[in-house]
């Protein structure tokens, strides 16, 4: 098992604004794993994701990418890690001054030092993959929320990441646009992409996830397959939480 661990975090501690947001989190993603992070707001899900690609530098703990330790102070190592660990944000963060195609190709040119043509071709392939063949030359302000999130997924995929972190990728979307993004995520899952996703889309993620990871108060408190955690006769914190969300959204967990 040790050999195919893509990303492993050990005892991650992070302080933000005087609070200890992560209090020693351990998580490992093996190749092809799909784990879903759930938990109440403020439990540290986003912070954990941002620590995993070192957008936040943890105060303590270790991070291993493909079994190799990444030192937090080593800047080139940090940039390397971020290329290999893709990140999808809740509010897309597309580059507003660039077209969809340029959004995808810019990091290929500036980080991977690819040529104009090569990077443009790759951008086209990735945008086709997320079903945006006809929107390549539009700018973020001309796209719907669902389209923007799909561009941001294409942008992350173009870097050939080993693992994709998704931070509530559908939370900022209108309900009728969520579906198109979930379809793309499902496709990625089918193709064996390693993913860690924070989400409140319980029923959707239950069909995809190999494992639910429940976070509360800066710690992972429960971990297990959706089946185990949501089974009829089990009394888990995850189940309570999912039931509450389902009550609100009318969604069946």
């Amino acid at each position: 098992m040790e050999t195919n661990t893509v990303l492993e975090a050990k005892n991650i501690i992070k302080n933000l604004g005087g609070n200890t947001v992560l209090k020693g989190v351990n998580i490992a993603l093996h190749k092809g794993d799909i784990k879903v992070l759930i938990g109440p707001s403020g439990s540290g899900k986003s912070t954990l994701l941002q620590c995993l690609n070192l957008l936040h530098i943890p105060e303590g703990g270790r991070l291993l990418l493909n079994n190799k330790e990444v030192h937090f102070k080593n800047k080139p190592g940090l940039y390397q890690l971020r290329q290999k660990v893709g990140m999808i944000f809740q509010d897309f963060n597309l580059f507003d001054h660039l077209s969809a195609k340029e959004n995808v190709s810019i990091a290929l040119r500036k980080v991977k030092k690819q040529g104009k043509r090569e990077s443009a071709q790759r951008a086209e392939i990735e945008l086709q993959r997320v079903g945006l063949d006809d929107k390549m030359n539009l700018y973020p302000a001309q796209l719907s929320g669902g389209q923007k999130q799909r561009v941001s997924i294409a942008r992350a995929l173009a870097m050939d990441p080993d693992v994709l972190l998704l931070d509530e990728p559908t939370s900022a979307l209108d309900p009728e646009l969520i579906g198109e993004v979930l379809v793309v995520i499902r496709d990625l899952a089918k193709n064996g992409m390693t993913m860690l996703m924070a989400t409140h889309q319980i029923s959707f993620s239950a069909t995809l996830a190999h494992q639910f990871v429940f976070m509360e108060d800066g710690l992972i408190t429960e971990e297990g397959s959706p089946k185990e955690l949501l089974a009829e006769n089990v009394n888990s914190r995850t189940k309570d939480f999912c039931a509450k969300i389902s009550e609100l959204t009318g969604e069946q967990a």
Partner: protein
Amino acid sequence: MNNFIVFITAHVIPGLNSGLVVSIKLIIPSAILGIIIGILTGTFRVYGPLPIKKLSDAYVAVFRGTPLVVQLYFWYFALPYTNFGDFRIVMSAETCAIVGFSLCSGAYHSEYIRGGLLSIKSGQLLAAQALGMNQITAIKNIVLPQAFRNSFSGCSNEIVYLIKYSSLASIITINDITGMGRGIAKESWRNVETYLVVGLYYLALVTLANIILHYIEKKMKTPGFEKEHA
């Protein structure tokens, strides 16, 4: 009336035209250098490491806080008499003017650029870093291009100002439009006609600059951000 037109065409216009060439040779390099200085110091003031940030703040404080006339006097009349060890800096009047204008203009530009940078949401930088860009690449390719668009109307305003304060070159002996005009007026005692035409020259320069700046602004506009009006 006839006399008026003859005087203007025979004396004022030829004189001012040679001044116009001098003025343009001051304005264009100063505008370009000013923008470059402004972008650099504006960026340093937002993203620079602390010592460079402080230094940039100090530069802006000095150059925005003292009259341009005093700055020009310093470059032209004071600097040549200042010893740096065995070394003195002596610059021609034209160089002094360009140095003075660029540094003053740059201080103001940096303020507009700083505002533009602060208006960019932090998610833009975060997303760029998440793709593996280092801070400099991310600022240069993602944040600055957007910030520059947002600050452009302010920077245009500063360039218009620059065209007008370039007339101060005349006080350090340069025969720009104003310098030539003053000479013609002194010689002929016809202040009204001369300064009227001098004013028109600046008006024409500013109008031309506005046309060019608007064109650039339009070219840089990101689709989807247009204002809805005809």
